């Protein structure tokens, strides 16, 4: 492996890791703060990817196209979807035991997959990257690196920074952090915890949908894509420590590196490497790398 290939793989690992982080951060937030095991989180990623595919022609027909217009529209729909779902399906789950939540969100996965099949069909679709991002940057003599992948990494980094800012520096972030530690106490201090939960959930959904939308041109869209992402994101969440955003970031980058380089260096066992990594880390640190709280 020469230096250029190594560099390219590093960029790929970074891009994959950051993308995982976006989806996993929503999962770890919803789990850490609301205490809900949300199996349907992978479906939100899938919905995002399909939105990128299905909304683009619609946006092109109504306002004459525009990549960022599509993203914005998807984001608005995602927030609305998250808000509605929390109200209809999740709000009565908080007092139930975790396994009831598992059952419920499993039902939601089935429903989302079938609705997807009814609305868009079961074919694999490619999604076009916008023209101004579809070029490549030459690296060395032979290799090129697509601009769009750099764009994905950039978007993810921006969002990660934004999340850090909201969490660490704003009043809302303070309430969320407090709510994750002691729900009753925050409530008695006069914070509308139900509304807070709804906001967190909607934000988690929106981030997952956004991740799906920006990833669609690279990954293409296909049935079952949500399930794959879900399991890997759970791996990220437990490696990082449940509820820890910092842990999720480190764990997703770790998995990005292990998975990307595993596929290049030892393709025979690449699939299992991530799970070996998780088992080793959890046997070494049974509560993940960073325990929240």
């Amino acid at each position: 492996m020469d230096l250029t290939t190594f560099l390219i793989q590093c960029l790929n690992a970074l891009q994959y890791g950051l993308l995982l982080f976006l989806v996993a951060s929503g999962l770890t937030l919803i789990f850490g703060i609301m205490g809900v095991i949300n199996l349907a989180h992978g479906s939100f990623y899938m919905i995002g990817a399909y939105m990128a595919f299905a909304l683009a022609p619609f946006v092109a027909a109504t306002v004459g196209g525009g990549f960022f217009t599509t993203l914005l529209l998807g984001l608005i729909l995602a927030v609305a979807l998250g808000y509605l779902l929390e109200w209809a399906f999740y709000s009565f789950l908080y007092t139930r035991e975790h396994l009831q939540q598992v059952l419920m969100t499993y039902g939601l996965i089935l429903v989302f997959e079938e609705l997807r099949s009814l609305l868009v069909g079961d074919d694999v679709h490619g999604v076009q990257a916008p023209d101004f991002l579809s070029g490549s940057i030459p690296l060395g003599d032979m290799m090129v690196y697509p601009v769009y992948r750099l764009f994905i990494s950039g978007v993810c980094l921006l969002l990660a920074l934004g999340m850090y800012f909201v969490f660490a520096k704003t009043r809302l972030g303070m309430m969320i952090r407090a709510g994750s530690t002691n729900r009753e106490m925050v409530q008695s201090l006069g914070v509308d915890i139900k509304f807070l939960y709804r906001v967190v959930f909607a934000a988690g959904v929106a981030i997952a949908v956004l991740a799906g939308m920006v990833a669609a041109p690279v990954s293409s869209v296909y049935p079952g894509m949500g399930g794959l992402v879900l399991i890997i994101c759970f791996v990220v969440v437990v490696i990082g420590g449940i509820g820890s955003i910092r842990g999720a970031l480190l764990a997703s980058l770790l998995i990005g590196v292990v998975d990307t380089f595993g596929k290049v260096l030892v393709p025979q066992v690449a699939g299992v490497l991530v799970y070996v990594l998780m088992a080793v880390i959890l046997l070494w640190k049974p509560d993940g790398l960073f325990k929240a709280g």
Partner: protein
Amino acid sequence: MRAQLPKFLFVLVSFAALAVFPHVAGNFGVDLATKIMIFAVLALSLELLVGKTGLVCFGQAAFFGIGAYATVLLSPSDGPASVATLLPLCVLLAAAYALVVGALSLRTKGVYFIMVTLAFAQMAYYVVHDTPLGGGTDGIYLMMKPALGDWLDLDKPLVMYRFTLACLLGTFVFLALLGRSKFGHALAGIRVNEQRMRATGFSTYPYKLAAFVVSGGIAGLAGFLFAVKDGFVNPEMMSWHISGEVLIIIILGGLGHLRGALIGAFAFALLQEFFRSEAIFGEFAKHWHLGLGLTIIASVALLPRGLVGIPAQLFGRKPGTHSGGALAQATPTKAGHAQP
């Protein structure tokens, strides 16, 4: 004792109905019922962990798959294997893997435990998926189905049905007796409050490990039955979808009760068949997941104690006043939650 009587009668009637079922059903019915009973055995194995001990294992498919692969790989190609040697061997192999997995993963708790068991199951999955050992992604066929003398030829569907029913009954009785034993009470204590069990002088780790190994062995038995029934195994048997499906089955049925696993297995499979039937839904039958998903959501919303809790809900009995009692009453909010 009086409260136990309806439950006992329910189980008795169910098994009696299963025993006479082949006389009234056609080939399709017998085949479907055999498959459901195999999944019921698998569900019972998980119920021992989740419902009785409070350990949520997300890797049950690995033990199921190991039992099934062992059945095929250990069968001689020139004649039928003997059930009397092959079956215990498959159960032992699955239990042996459960011993390794349990010994390591029981160091973790809650959601971390769920994910570690998944990790070990995925490792087993990739071993059969990516190595030539078990035919890779294509899977392998079982050439000669095992038998025992002339009277137990598992190649015949009806014999297979009765053998599976006997295994299901045996598993059920075994687990029911286990639940009433000292060992079973210790497991219940661990489920309700492990700290307190430790404080009263129980070393809880060996108990949990023993439960894990027994559960793995029973899942291996289910794997054996599955391989013999279909005469074919493939890596998908070990995928996390199967682990998830079994978990769904026992939650749907109702945790903390052995009959919940039975009811869940039948309800889940029959719901699938119902929504998949073209006679009822016509063209729409290919979107059967939609109906299944909505039914599951409705069952969570309306039946917090699972299907097994319906009579109690209808007749307004208070939950958990006697015996078992689902996980719900023991740990209302923070079961498996990471926060200290």
